[in-house]
């Protein structure tokens, strides 16, 4: 008898708890009406949330050097390098209407997700104000994310380059110029090294958080096929994957664990690689005498390279919008742009170009970056545009294609047909138009031919 009462009491308690925990009706996503800002002497606080500058030293440089002269607000610079918690915080703040974030600093690829979360202010007015700053026009256009609003102001840029250990130079194919390699020569170089050392010393960032898919999107596909989506299963693409398999033959099989290539370069597991400038810079920093930078190889359609862009947005409903705008103004000034290159190794977004006074390791890397952009056959591929929150699905198609063709050895044509069909379905669902170097599709979705 007693037991029964206990059980019922227990159940009742659980049910009450469950009822209490039922999600309360979400408040309307509009922010609390901004209280009339009283004019105070002390600068207001401003939260600057960034996905960039993961290493603690870089965060300190940001706080103590780059942000030092900014007086319009008291900036609290916080870094969340993984996108999931970063996005979760922003989405949660938007949903509850309790906004603390002011300025958002993130990569171009993150901004579509922020737009989808309805988390960004329209910065068109600010963009007009900053016009005299001569920010590279293509970058400003990218900041609109294919809309007529300015969602972010370009902040800084990086790219992917080839980095090699000087020990690899003797094995260069006869007649090859290390600053103007083709992908075929790259494979041959790897083969020569393998033959001589009995070790596979090419390396590619194909780990779980490595950026191999960017190399596929912005380097391999455009260089071989002159496009990405439209040419996804073209004959040129079949040739490309055949060559990628040949490169992979000479690539360290541990590449599937490499997320950034600097550690593998420093341990000499790898002698030659292509990766993001921020993910190889420690090689130059720790052993400046061992490594050199060079342009990424070229394919039949040119030496395509991808420019990686980080931008600054303003959180919708932020309590300190004036401070946020002032901070963006500050960070895009030439002095701060130069300081960003000097201190944290990202390059300016201004048309005036690169600063002269940079530390030795930055100079080593910069050398490759400049050679790459100035190469006679150099062409720029853009980051995917208009994919919204589905950018991850898009990347996954390139990752899966690589896994199936290269790692599992499936038939190239069959894989390209199947993954191409997925790509078509995704682009049709998103109604996303083609971006460069794919030819314009007008207002129709970009489709695989």
């Amino acid at each position, binding site marked *: 008898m007693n037991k029964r009462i206990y059980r019922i009491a227990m159940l009742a308690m659980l049910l009450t708890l469950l009822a209490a925990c039922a999600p309360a009706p979400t408040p309307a996503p509009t922010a609390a009406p901004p209280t009339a800002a009283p004019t105070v002497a002390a600068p207001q606080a401003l939260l600057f949330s960034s996905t960039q500058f993961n290493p603690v030293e870089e965060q300190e440089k940001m706080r103590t050097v780059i942000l030092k002269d900014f007086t319009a607000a008291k900036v609290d610079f916080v870094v969340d390098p993984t996108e999931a918690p970063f996005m979760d915080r922003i989405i949660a703040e938007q949903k509850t209407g309790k906004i603390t974030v002011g300025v958002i600093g993130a990569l171009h690829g993150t901004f579509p997700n922020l737009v989808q979360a309805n988390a960004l202010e329209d910065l068109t007015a600010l963009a007009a104000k900053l016009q005299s700053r001569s920010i590279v026009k293509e970058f400003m256009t990218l900041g609109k994310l294919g809309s007529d609003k300015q969602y972010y102001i370009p902040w800084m840029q990086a790219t992917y380059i080839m980095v090699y250990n000087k020990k690899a130079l003797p094995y260069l194919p006869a007649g090859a110029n290390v600053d103007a390699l083709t992908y075929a020569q790259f494979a041959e170089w790897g083969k020569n090294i393998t033959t001589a050392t009995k070790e596979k010393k090419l390396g590619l960032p194909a780990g779980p958080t490595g950026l191999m898919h960017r190399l596929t999107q912005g380097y391999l596909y455009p260089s071989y096929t002159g496009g990405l989506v439209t040419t996804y299963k073209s004959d040129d693409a079949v040739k490309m994957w055949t060559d990628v398999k040949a490169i992979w033959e000479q690539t360290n099989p541990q590449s599937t664990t490499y997320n950034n290539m600097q550690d593998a370069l420093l341990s000499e*597991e790898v002698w030659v690689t292509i990766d993001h400038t921020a993910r190889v810079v420690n090689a130059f920093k720790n052993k400046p005498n061992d490594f050199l930078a060079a342009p990424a190889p070229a394919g039949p359609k040119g030496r395509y390279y991808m420019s990686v862009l980080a931008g600054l947005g303003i959180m919708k409903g932020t309590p300190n919008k004036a401070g946020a705008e002032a901070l963006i103004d500050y960070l895009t000034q030439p002095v701060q742009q130069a300081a960003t290159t000097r201190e944290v190794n990202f390059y300016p977004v201004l048309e005036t170009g690169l600063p002269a006074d940079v530390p030795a390791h930055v100079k080593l890397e910069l050398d490759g970056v400049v050679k790459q952009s100035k190469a006679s056959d150099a062409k720029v591929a853009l980051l995917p545009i208009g994919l919204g929150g589905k950018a991850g699905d898009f990347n996954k198609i390139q990752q899966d294609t690589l896994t199936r063709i290269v790692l599992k050895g499936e038939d190239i044509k069959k894989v390209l047909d199947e993954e191409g069909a997925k790509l078509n379905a995704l682009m049709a669902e998103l109604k996303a138009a083609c971006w460069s170097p794919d030819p314009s599709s007008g207002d129709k979705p970009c489709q695989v031919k």
Partner: protein
Amino acid sequence: MRVRTESILPYSLLAPTLIFITLLIVVPIFQAFLLAFQTADGEFTLTQFEKMIADTSFADALKFTFLLLIFIVPAQVVLALVMALLIHTRFKGHTFFLYIYALPLAISDLAAGIVWLAIFTERGFLNSGLFQLGLLERPFLFLSYQNLPALFSTLIIAESWRATAIVMVILLAGLQVIPRDYFEAADVFGANTLKRTLFVVLPLLRPSLQNALIIRTIFAFQTFAVVLALAGRVIPVLTGEAYNWYALNRNANIAAAYSTLVLIFTVIATVVYFRLLRTSTAEAGFD
């Protein structure tokens, strides 16, 4: 009046835990469960599961999750049992070994993964050590996708190191509540150590074994960070895929579908253990 206070007391003592579990575990489980059956707009659908099954990595993730389970759980339970029995003999210095055995409990699984990566990677501790001893001419690639058995073995070693401790602690606790009388009785009847272990200790340890198996199996389904660190994308597992879909592809619904699948497997495994290792109250409580 007095009776009433007494009957409320247990509930008020239980309440904090109950509230905690409900808020932080039960509610999120329901929410995740619902997500798996919803479209991005919140309508009911089964497409998340269809997409999950059609995914390139799904079959491999399923296969490797179960392979890991099959290799790890028995190995760990046997290993943990041996360790617990050894500690239980209270030999001189046994507390030192207890601390050594329990050390991995204090280390997060991603940290453990990275430690093992530093050991097994091409220029890692193991290869450097073997090379310096003159046993290797050039580094052996343990973590190559072209050598799945080697890669898989490293996972089993790393996972065993990381998670055997929890099983051992549970079994040791179980051993310690067995009254000494049983052992004395066994001695009186002339049982040797082997017989005593087989016919006295093991049957009495059944409730603890059951708990240990359940917990270990649940953990095995959740194995993820060690695999991610050592094998990258080459060996996908179910929870790893849930993470990828949520964190990298930003698709909470498919991530939830994976989690739901893991939940279903976990429930099935728990029920199976309860049935197979059913214990009577007498055995469990020694009364």
